[in-house]
């Protein structure tokens, strides 16, 4: 299925949860990331439940500061 992640189109295999998506996308420190789907900020507690759907627009928003962010 096709989704947009941070403005870039991506082809993903099968339905998957946000938690799984963070793994697939190789996000090194998921604790340092907020996730917005179609304009709504998710609760961290929802990461294991919310299923990513075709055409979803997903933004990974990274904590930045204190010499750290979730990008690495």
């Amino acid at each position, binding site marked *: 299925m096709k989704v947009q992640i*941070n*403005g870039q189109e991506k082809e993903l295999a099968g339905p998957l949860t946000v938690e799984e998506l963070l793994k697939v996308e190789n996000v090194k*420190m998921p*604790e*340092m990331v*907020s996730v*917005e789907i179609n*304009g*709504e*900020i998710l*609760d*961290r507690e929802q990461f294991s439940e919310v299923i990513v759907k075709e055409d979803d627009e997903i*933004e990974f*928003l*990274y*904590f*930045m*500061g*204190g*010499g*750290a*962010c979730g*990008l*690495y």
Partner: protein
Amino acid sequence: MDFTEQQIERYSRHIILSEVGVEGQEKLLNSKVLIIGTGGLGAPAAMFLAAAGVGTIGLVDRDVVDLSNLQRQIIHQTKDVGKLKAVSGRETINEMNPDIKVIEYHTFVDSSNIMDIIKDQDYDFIIDGTDNFAAKFLINDACVLAKKPFSHAGIIRFHGQLTTYIPDNNTPCYRCIFKQPPPEGVVPTCREAGVLGVMGGVIGTLQATEAIKYILGLGDSLAGYLLTYDALDMEFRKIKIKHNKKCGVCGDEPHITSLIDYAQPVCDLSTGTIKG
């Protein structure tokens, strides 16, 4: 207010802009901006606000200038190493523009002092130029509770981001995006950290732009957006952010009604370890 001939010349490139004019320049000279942290972000923000003629600038910092700061904190000079940053900042500002009244606060912000500092001069706009999560959440909560507009920003490596908070405008705050600081132990040691010097210049200058626009009532602010900048891809993205009804400080049922001092590990760059 009457401009001196020197002021008319100094600010002529502002005054000639129909969106600014004499009236706008007068607004700037009568305005007060508080800059918390005079480092990578605060230094360029302070320089441009001073050059623009923002009449009162508060500088909050308890640090002294270190040689390793000079790679990006352009308000401080080699001769200032060892000097309190707020003093060094005031001296540079006044050499550049003697019109500016600089108020120094030789302290780090915490829950006991931030409200007093914000209210000290009834600042019009606040710039978060800090580098740690504890201060960022504190500044956010204080500005939301005190109903003060502010600019949040962060920089790391080749990345930067910023957003603007405007009270009473259904604007999302920093906590709407990031519910709470990352858990302890997740934030990597400072050995892994680094930042391209110009990142603070780009993002801090954008913070100054937001302050000036707010004071002049010009254009559209970044309220409701997170602007991200990737210097390697040379890409800016403006991400729409909605107000979060579940936000702890500005949501429908806020549970944060007083300020919180989060623990903040302090980096010792000489050893690459974390203290405190």
